[in-house]
């Protein structure tokens, strides 16, 4: 339905639903850490990004090429839902184990190259997004110099003579000492 929805916003909502469903399956499989990240990033952040992009770009209704009829698509959806329902019954025999410490050791020690790669991915994504979203000016939009209103500058501005500031003179150490220290002991 995320693919076949006419409106882009509806497709984004269906995608969030798919993401939440995948997160549930991952949790039941014993991959709790990935499930939490998938739910927060896949169903949260990416959906917000989609809504943001659709609100900027606007809905553009385009009809897709009809490769398979609508009934077959709905049938596939029902079959997939049935598969998930059947899957849910014998899930207890999988033996979900909480092994957070082992995951942490694998993630931070054995797969540290992956962590480095993730940082590179994030940095590349941020830089690319900033570069792509930078304001691109069309040549026709660039104003002529005569069209740009001139700033009103006070003619007297800048004509005043520079008044030199008083130079701080070094203070003798004897003047900085407190009165009590100047008194000589009896």
């Amino acid at each position, binding site marked *: 339905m*995320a*693919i076949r929805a006419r409106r*882009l916003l509806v*497709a*984004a909502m269906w*995608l969030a639903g*798919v*993401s939440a469903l995948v997160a549930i*399956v*991952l949790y039941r*499989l*014993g*991959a709790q*850490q*990935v499930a939490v*990240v*998938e739910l927060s990033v*896949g169903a949260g*952040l*990416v959906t917000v*990004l*989609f809504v943001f*992009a*659709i609100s900027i*770009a*606007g809905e*553009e209704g*385009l009809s*897709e*090429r*009809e*490769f*398979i009829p609508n009934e077959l698509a709905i049938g*596939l959806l029902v*079959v*997939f839902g049935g*598969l998930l329902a*059947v*899957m849910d019954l*014998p*899930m207890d*025999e*999988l033996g979900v*184990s909480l*092994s957070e410490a*082992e*995951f942490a050791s*694998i*993630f931070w020690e054995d*797969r540290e190259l*992956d962590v480095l790669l*993730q940082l590179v*991915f*994030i940095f590349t*994504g941020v830089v*690319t997004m900033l570069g*792509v*979203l930078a304001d*691109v000016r*069309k040549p026709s939009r660039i104003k002529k110099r005569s069209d740009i209103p001139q700033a009103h500058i006070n003619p007297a501005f800048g004509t005043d003579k520079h008044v030199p500031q008083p130079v701080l003179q070094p203070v003798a150490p004897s003047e900085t000492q407190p009165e009590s220290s100047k008194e000589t002991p009896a």
Partner: protein
Amino acid sequence: MSTLTILAGGALALFAVGLYGLLITRNMIKVVVALQILVKAALLALVVAGKASDQINLGQSLAMTVIVADTVVAVIGLALAVQVKRVLGTMDLTELSKLRG
């Protein structure tokens, strides 16, 4: 039929849906949606494979990298779609493929 086999079938079905969407869609934002579905299928398959080989933590570690890469792809794709719409006025891929020069 074991649960892992069913899950592998589910991942395959999800992959087929994403591939189908990638083939039929013409809107750039919907292409990103289809890519997201494809990557979610790969994510599910990674964790299922890790569970089947009794290395669930290794599967999780790889899946985490896939999630990060997937998010970056979505961000870049959406930014590109917005900019194409802003400059060229359309997100139709067939229209965009006709552009010359």
